[in-house]
């Protein structure tokens, strides 16, 4: 990095700092189109190659500060007690519910206010609370240092409302630029009450957690317990997989694992002197690269993307580190690998014994249940490659299925019109390899 592309320091006067910042942008951004957009005020951020981060331009920063007021408003509306700490453990934001609890119950239950340092509050807690405060402080320090993703602590204390049991959850905010953490506190039981009941705060939080899981399009990732998914999430990178792209070739090292969201990846066996033949299909129900779970780092198949779509991927080495630490991920992946092996062996038998029309029906049903869209694009050539038959065989089989009004096939776009009918037209293999999760493939 040459010295003239270093981001200027901000300890000069405002005017000088603005001039230096402007000069820096013009040294980093040299293209005519970029400079024109900069002069027209159409840019928001410039990448700093030295630090690898995005530097917001002043106008964008001011506008975002405005939107942070909206965030603050939303934060205050939340019924649960929530506060956000910076990397030093200082409370930078506490919502209305957190502040109201502090005002109501005084210093009970580790009450800290905006501007207070949570770690310091734990160190200087009153004698009666010293033990639990030190435990919370130790947990918070581990989360701040990144040694753990979250820390949960249950404690009992006396408040003006009586004898209460609290659950304190300290968790990293994965999407924050710096290492901020969020602290939530739930009053899970007040001993004055005859029966413990999940209050509105807990119900709300559970709903919020479900919402977050529903947001994950890949079913394998969505099925993981929240803690295990969090372990993976930091290393997941969104990518677009393009039609015809080969993710792996036989014998090559698998550098990434892929979790498809709305595309399907074919696993092809390559036999010398013959066309590649499809032996497996992976979509949003699974993962491409599951061989890593068996400790094998080389691919035995060609993994070919069918139709452009999105996925998330993760470096193989990092994935293996998380895999070794997460029994739930191991269990999920072993189950998926078993399902995939079942699919591969069934497909091999199917390719050998069943007629093209039955195989095509099976293949269309398998593809459909792995894609969120009701219609998908496939050419006859592509289908012929997947099924290991000549193009004319696919044309005849597709025409037959169309005549029976089971599918509509126009210029490569296929829509399944009669799911039950197509299942009846498929060979029995489909019932052995269909996805059992009712959520995948619905609609």
């Amino acid at each position, binding site marked *: 990095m040459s010295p003239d592309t270093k981001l200027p320091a901000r300890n000069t006067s405002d005017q000088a700092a603005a001039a230096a910042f402007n000069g820096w942008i013009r040294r980093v951004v040299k293209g005519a189109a970029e400079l024109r957009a900069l002069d027209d005020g159409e840019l928001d951020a410039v*990448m700093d190659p030295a630090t690898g981060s995005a530097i*917001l331009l002043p*106008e964008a920063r001011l506008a975002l500060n405005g939107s942070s007021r909206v965030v603050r408003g939303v934060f205050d509306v939340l019924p649960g007690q929530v506060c956000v700490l910076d990397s030093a453990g200082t409370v930078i934001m506490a919502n209305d519910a957190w502040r109201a609890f502090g005002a109501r119950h005084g210093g009970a239950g580790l009450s800290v206010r905006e501007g207070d340092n949570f770690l310091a509050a734990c160190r200087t807690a009153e004698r009666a609370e010293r033990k639990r405060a030190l435990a919370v402080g130790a947990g918070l320090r581990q989360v701040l240092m990144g040694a753990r993703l979250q820390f949960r602590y249950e404690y009992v204390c006396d408040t003006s409302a009586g004898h209460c049991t609290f659950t304190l959850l300290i968790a990293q905010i994965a999407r924050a630029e710096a290492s901020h953490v969020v602290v939530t506190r739930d009053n899970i039981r007040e001993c004055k009450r005859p029966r413990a009941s999940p209050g509105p705060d807990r119900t709300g939080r559970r709903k919020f957690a479900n919402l977050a899981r529903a947001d994950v399009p890949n079913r394998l990732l969505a099925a993981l317990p929240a803690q295990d998914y969090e372990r993976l999430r930091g290393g997941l990178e969104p990518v677009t997989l393009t039609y015809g792209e080969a993710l792996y070739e036989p014998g090559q090292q698998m550098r990434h694992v892929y979790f498809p969201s709305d595309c399907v990846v074919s696993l092809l066996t390559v036999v010398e002197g013959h066309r590649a033949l499809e032996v497996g299909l992976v979509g949003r129900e699974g993962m491409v690269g599951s061989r890593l779970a068996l400790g094998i780092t080389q691919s035995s198949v060609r993994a070919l993307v069918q139709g*452009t779509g999105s996925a998330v991927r993760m470096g193989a080495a990092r994935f293996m580190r998380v895999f070794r630490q997460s029994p739930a991920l191991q269990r999920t992946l072993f189950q998926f690998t078993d399902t995939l092996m079942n699919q591969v062996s069934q497909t091999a038998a199917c390719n050998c014994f069943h007629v093209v029309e039955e195989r095509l029906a099976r293949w269309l049903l398998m593809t459909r249940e792995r894609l969120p869209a009701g219609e998908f694009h496939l050419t006859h050539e592509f289908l012929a490659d997947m099924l290991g038959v000549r193009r004319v065989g696919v044309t005849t089989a597709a025409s037959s299925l169309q005549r029976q009004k089971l599918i509509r096939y126009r210029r490569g776009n296929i829509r399944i019109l009669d799911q039950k009918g197509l299942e009846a037209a498929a060979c029995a293999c489909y019932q052995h390899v269909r996805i059992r999760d009712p959520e995948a493939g619905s609609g």
Partner: protein
Amino acid sequence: MAAGSHDMAGKPARARKGDAAVTTVVVMRLYIAGGAPNSVKAIANLQAICEQHLRSSYRLELIDVCEYPQRALDDGVLVTPSLTKVSPGPATNVIGNLSDTGSVLAALGVRARAMK
């Protein structure tokens, strides 16, 4: 503005090229900076352009450089908003809030569809 990188997808569909009906899906990446004003404008402008001129035959990936800066650097993107056409080739790039529809269409290699 939702942060992160996600798809605003259209499924493959027919687009007209001359007299022959062909299937062309335009794959694009739009690099934005969170909910910053020009980024928000760029998304709105691009959505309008796609709906009018590409119908459903496009795929758009939004990449928030505040969350995925390395992705932008790896792709050689230095400023946001920045739109890259990935396929069909050749790859092209448009910088700014995409208010100039003509230059966006030219970069995407799409002929303007007459307004109804």
